[in-house]
């Protein structure tokens, strides 16, 4: 039985209309038409500056109405739709809060409103000979705010570790407070409070603006691929290279069974300026050759890196430490294909094809310690949310927080 949709009070409508005029507030069918989510919203509101977001959140709080923010509202992922409040919600569409505010090409940053599409960010960056370090899953029609809300991290090529993709964030808290961080690469100013906005699906408020890191447009890209008859050797090359030279732009190892024996293909791509890509790739080639790898052609290597490794099949994924990979590969003897990518200093991402195993999570976390740690972290974050939003009104679909890595 579906829950009954609530009705918003006359006071709510009057309050918003008197502040903003009817033009900016859509009701019922008009709202549903403007916001592509199911169930559709009770009302939709398209703010044009952060103070309007703040007023709306305060008004909704007084009404005890749930609020869901969305970026371009062009589409909504199933995992969000399933969590939308059945009793209805007020939607904040950020498509009017859009545009590039400032670009500092020498300092490699760009600030933009949260509703700016990733395509617009990319185009603007390219005009300056720069690029936006977007991560996997970022689509052209997606928005800056949406991307930061579901992801927000990038792999730092210099440090080979994850780092925020932004220098600063502006957001409106459920309390209505407009908060800003200082745009700076690193600081020591107490807890990094603004980290709470990254990857938490808007659970701590609505991101309205961000200062995004940029990179110089890739001058050169160098890639290579090798076949290995022994998976252990390929794995060691991937591990060694990932920690000792500039982080690869992409790296992928594909393990397949052939005649009862496992074989591996490993490809890595490096990018950068002034010969950096070639230096890193040369290092990879030397390591791969000394480990007994047989060189593949450039096109082959490219397809290993960028073609769908699951070949259209369903896959399951998780993360794993280097020291655990060999043992896990033995346990996954029935898998058609195992793909390792996204290498970091301590481990990498793992995908299993086909993805019909029901024991992968247990294999990756046999003692359940990671799951327990995640639950604890969720509890602390949930405690913070309770302070800011005791009635759980803002982006309630974010709670409980989805597991990291489970972005859209």
């Amino acid at each position: 039985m579906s829950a009954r949709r609530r009705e918003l009070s006359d006071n709510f409508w009057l309050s918003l209309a008197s502040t903003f005029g009817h033009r900016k507030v859509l009701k019922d069918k008009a709202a549903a038409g403007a916001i592509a989510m199911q169930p559709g919203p009770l009302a939709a509101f398209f703010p044009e500056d952060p103070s309007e977001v703040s007023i709306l959140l305060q008004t909704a709080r007084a009404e005890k109405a749930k609020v869901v923010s969305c970026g371009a509202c062009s589409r909504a992922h199933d995992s969000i739709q399933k969590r939308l409040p059945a009793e209805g919600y007020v939607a904040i569409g950020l498509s009017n809060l859009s545009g590039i505010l400032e670009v500092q090409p020498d300092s490699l940053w760009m600030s933009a409103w949260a509703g700016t599409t990733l395509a617009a960010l990319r185009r603007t960056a390219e005009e300056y000979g720069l690029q936006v370090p977007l991560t996997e899953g970022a689509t052209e029609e997606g928005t800056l705010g949406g991307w930061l809300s579901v992801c927000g991290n990038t792999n730092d090529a210099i440090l080979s570790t994850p780092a925020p993709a932004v220098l600063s964030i502006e957001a409106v808290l459920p309390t209505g407070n407009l908060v800003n961080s200082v745009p700076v690469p690193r600081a020591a100013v107490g807890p990094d409070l603004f980290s709470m906005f990254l990857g938490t699906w808007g659970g701590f408020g609505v991101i309205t603006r961000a200062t995004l890191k940029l990179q110089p447009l890739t001058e050169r890209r160098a890639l290579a691929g090798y076949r290995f008859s022994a998976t252990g050797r390929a794995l060691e090359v991937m591990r060694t290279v990932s920690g000792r030279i500039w982080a690869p732009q992409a790296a992928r190892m594909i393990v397949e069974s052939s005649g009862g024996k496992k074989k591996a293909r490993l490809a890595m791509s490096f990018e950068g300026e002034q010969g950096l890509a070639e230096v890193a790739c040369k290092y990879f080639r030397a390591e791969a050759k000394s480990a007994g790898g047989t060189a593949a052609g450039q096109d082959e290597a490219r397809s290993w890196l960028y073609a769908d490794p699951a070949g259209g099949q369903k896959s399951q994924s998780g993360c794993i430490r280097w020291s655990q990979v060999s043992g896990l590969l033995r346990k996954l003897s029935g898998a058609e294909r195992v793909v390792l990518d996204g290498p970091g200093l301590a481990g990498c991402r793992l995908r299993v094809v086909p993805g019909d195993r029901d024991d992968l999570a247990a294999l990756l976390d046999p003692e359940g310690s990671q799951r327990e740690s995640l639950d604890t972290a969720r509890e602390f974050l949930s405690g913070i949310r309770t302070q800011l939003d005791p009635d759980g009104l803002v982006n309630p679909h974010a709670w409980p927080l989805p597991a990291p890595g489970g972005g859209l």
Partner: protein
Amino acid sequence: MPLFEPVLPDSGLVGKLERICGSGGVSVSEPDRIAYARDMWPRSLIRQRLGAVDSPPDVIAWPQTAKQVAEVVRLARKAGLPVVPFGAGSGVCGGTLPLRGGIVLDLKRMNRILDFCAEDRLLAVEAGAVGENLEREVNRRGFTIGHFPSSMYCSTVGGWIAARGAGQCSSRYGKIEDMVQSLTFIDAEGQEHTTPFRWPGLSAWSIDPLLVGSEGTLGIITSASLVIRELSAERWYRGFKFPNVASGVEGMRLIFRQGLRPAVARLYDEFDTVIAKTGPEEEDVAEPVLSGLGGKVAGPLKRLATLGLTRLLHSPRLLNRMVDMLPGGCLMVVVAEGVEEELSHTSEAVTTLCRSRGAVDLGEGPGRHWWKHRYGISYKQSALFAAGAFVDTMEVATTWDRIPSLYKAVRKAVSPLAFIMAHFSHGYREGCSIYFTFAAAAKDDAASAALYDRIWDAAQEAVLSEGAVVSHHHGVGMSKQRFLVRQLAEANVLAQAAKTAFDAGGLFNPGKLGQRGGSVPP
């Protein structure tokens, strides 16, 4: 007769603590309580010269295990006593001052390596491990932590994390937040938690960024899992002399923009350059120079003191003008490390970029010299303190486009009050840190404390108005918290929410990071 008595709500509390930490693991002695009433915050040192002991702890405990920490926290909670975690006391911001007394938890006995996995490049270590001891042990196994604060001999892993610190090689290895993979901490109810492991490249909310930098206010960090790197077989040292600060900053920016990752790239402004020695040939002149105050500048300022220039500090305007008339030239020290292929590429590219901005290659002398003396005398007192003057440092950061105006604004603000010099370090693709050093003197210690506050007010006002961040790696402590509160503005609501969620009762390090009761003694 003791100068002051500990205020313990429960007369049996010391005995209970001894049952937890062992009989040698607890002290209420006056010397210990005086020793733990301060860290290396210069203002504390001035106050100490006045004979003031502003906020002694009531009791000091030295736990040896996370379980003991948890028990102490539960006991403190029951007794209503604050708990302040303490590493090696090298902080320069007053972050460990027990403002409301209570229990200081010195974690140095918790210094074990819990796990070491070469294959995963992971080290799990207890929070009380002292940097240099740990680095040596990790080196013995063929790795490096990559975190080298100038307080390396007198700071702990827990302190690095609590303050969100940076090492001198952060351009290659990152700040401590880049190294932490997971933390274990004791919460305000005395429960132990381990945070989820941080995976590469994924969307990842985490509570690590809240605990790192929390300065002991959210929980007691008892151990950490850190990424480590293979030791570099080769190292490249260099010095370049740029025509001026502007060309040097531009050279530094270009190095990082290109994705190069020298471990060290430090640019000294004109006066810092004059003081800095440029090669091994000068090593017999005096104390190491490019070192830090109470730390960072104790060497050069000792030389000032030796030369009788301390008196000049009473006329900072004059001294700063004299410095402005110095012949131009700014030294940049570069140290690179890594595999042979990277080193070769980096050395060529750095040299080309520096020359393109008018720099003269000084050879490897300055780099080698800096490396040899890189920890300087962080653990010694500055000679200027002995001479009745004082020194302090302020490390702030911003993006490259704002660096020149930030440098000028802070110099302008501080010049009437103190002698000031600076270096630029901790480069990133988007910006860097400026490390200012102030030296000043007043007629007596009471006047010194007042002048000290005026200098900080002037300097941090300039930082705020330039849109820079109030601290890059020393942390907040007492010295910057009033400015942090202003910088956070409405985001103080977030800070308060985090504090309430982790420590609603205000048990941990009260009065810090904008929490109530954090006023500075007169």
